[in-house]
């Protein structure tokens, strides 16, 4: 059982790593290493080599605008160059709206007297960070169970024992990632282009059943031991509204593939965390002298309410 869990976790971690690695590869200009926001009103450009001070200190060589507003150039107040002449910090008159990607154009970059041409760069919040914030957001801050109140039937049904809860959580995470990715592809490449949005409910529920069936079959063939451990939960997964809610949210928010993956993973892991916490608490409640009218589900609801009160502490949190 333990090995099974460890294997699953390992697989999940590897998937996440792979996803992160592939995103980090995109480069924009060979001479510019990195651009990033700093403070509320700064953009920092890191060059691969030293740039000429005369070029760097001239504000007219830069133009910066928010992506949807190419006509409105942002006013650069001061420019500072680091002693090694590799880093330029542009300070703007007004605070930047860092939620928007900014487009930075650096014309005629000169380094040691040599002109290196013009670079157009997009400055945005670290994408990895953004992905990470989607993951953490779905997992903890906007936990689907405690702050979005979804998936409750299964949540209360399978949180009585810790082992059941963990099994359910893992199974659920796998299925939701599989079905959400399938749903995303179908939505992006079939439903949306052909304006069949109204079919999304039917399509998504069909996909969920399909992926449950697929996981069931594959598991049964590939790893019967794993199937024995988790097979019983597969039937329950389909009655969980999170699994249908995630594709719907993906469709509403127009996430890209990676973001969708993060959201689905976050939703699944968040459900796992919620189940784990709830089950460990309920195992203790089993022993408590709960008033008879509250025994069983009612007290579980009250405890979930207390959880939700505690999770209010996360309200308004934005990590990146």
């Amino acid at each position, binding site marked *: 059982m333990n090995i099974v869990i460890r294997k699953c976790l390992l697989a999940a971690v590897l998937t996440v790593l792979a996803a992160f690695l592939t995103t980090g590869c995109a480069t924009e200009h060979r001479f510019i290493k990195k651009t990033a926001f700093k*403070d509320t009103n700064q953009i920092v450009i890191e060059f691969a080599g030293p740039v000429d001070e005369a070029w760097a200190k001239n504000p007219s060589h830069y133009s910066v605008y928010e992506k949807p507003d190419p006509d409105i150039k942002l006013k650069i107040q001061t420019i500072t160059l680091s002693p090694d002449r590799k880093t330029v910090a542009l300070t703007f008159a007004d605070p930047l709206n860092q939620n928007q990607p900014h487009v930075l154009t650096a014309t005629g970059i000169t380094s040691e007297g040599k002109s290196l041409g013009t670079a157009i760069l997009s400055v945005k919040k670290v994408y990895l960070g953004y992905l990470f914030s989607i993951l953490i957001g779905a997992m903890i801050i906007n936990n689907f169970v405690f702050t979005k109140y979804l998936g409750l039937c299964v949540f209360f049904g399978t949180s009585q024992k*810790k082992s059941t809860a963990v099994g359910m959580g893992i199974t659920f995470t796998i299925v939701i990632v599989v079905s959400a990715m399938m749903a995303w592809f179908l939505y992006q490449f079939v439903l949306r282009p052909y304006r069949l949005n109204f079919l999304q409910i039917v399509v998504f529920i069909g996909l969920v059943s399909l992926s449950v069936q697929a996981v069931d079959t594959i598991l049964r063939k590939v790893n019967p031991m794993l199937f024995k451990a988790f097979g019983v939960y597969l039937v329950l997964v389909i009655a969980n509204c999170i699994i249908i809610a995630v594709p719907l949210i993906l469709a509403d928010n127009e996430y890209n593939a990676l973001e969708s993956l993060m959201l689905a993973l976050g939703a699944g892991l968040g459900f796992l965390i919620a189940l784990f916490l709830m089950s460990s*608490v309920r195992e*203790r409640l089993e022993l408590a002298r709960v008033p008879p009218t509250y025994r069983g589900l009612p*007290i579980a609801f009250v*405890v979930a309410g*207390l959880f939700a*009160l505690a999770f209010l502490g996360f309200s*308004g*949190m934005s990590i990146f």
Partner: protein
Amino acid sequence: MLTVSVSPHIKSGESVEKIMWTVVVCLLPPLILSVFIFGVQTLIISAVSVASCVAAEAVSQKLLHRPITIKDGSAVITGLLMAYVIPPGVPCWIPILGAVMAIYVAKHLLGGIGFNIFNPALIGRAFLMATFPVAMTSAWLPPIRDAAVFKYMGSGIDAVSTATPLYVLKHYGIGALMEKFGSMSAIYSDFLVGWRPGCIGETSALLLLLGGLFLIYKRYITWHIPVSVIVSVAFFTWVFGGEKFFTGNPLLAILSGGVFLGAFFMATDYVTSPSQAPAKLIFGAGIGALTVLIRLKGGYPEGVCYAILLMNPLVPALEGWFRPKRFAPQKGA
């Protein structure tokens, strides 16, 4: 008539009542100080809070046909702690509602003392936060001594117009805070003594520290949780709290807000904290990390209370993971 019972026939002199009332005594100095800082209403609020908690305890136990144990002082502690984490400027009837939630729902519905998953006082506070968000996040009073300094930003019309140091820090930066207090050393000394806006019982780091040390000396609590909470708050603030990494101000972070109150008196609540040393350290470190997370990235300027609440449900799992090392475990078990 000779009594016949199972061994042991002698018991240690400690009792639940003794522990609880000692904690109550340790909690009193900050309350007395708060009367000097904010005025008599803090005393009234605390009294209402304690009275309503005790009443709620009695009524709940009566309703649920349990022996009435208001004399053991646990409801008094709940009442005091709940009063300590609400702003001094709230209407004094507010704690009554919190008491019902804290004592009846969070404690007695779950089986009474020993079975509550969450710290009742903090549940009461979270409930009040959700119910009276405006009062609970803005009814700060300036310290009486130099009230004028703390009227934050422009001309205050009524008294309720100051802001907690953490709020100022979060939204206006350290400069604004320096302006209020004069100098960095003035900030530290005022924070240590408690001469600053804040919740009723959280302002005086010094008195809380003394009370906590007394409890540690009496062996009612161990050093693990307080130290790990304070150290991790300091550490994470130092790492993430500044403009760059490793430039935060850890001293300011632990002196401001309710770190000492939370570390010594709330996180150490027997029922809602783990009992093994490694688990305690993890529990405390988790509280510290979540506190800093909420302070820096969250929607509230202060996060100790929510951090403790968020770590509380992890306690059963932590206790399962960290059990005492068995002297002679059965083979194969």
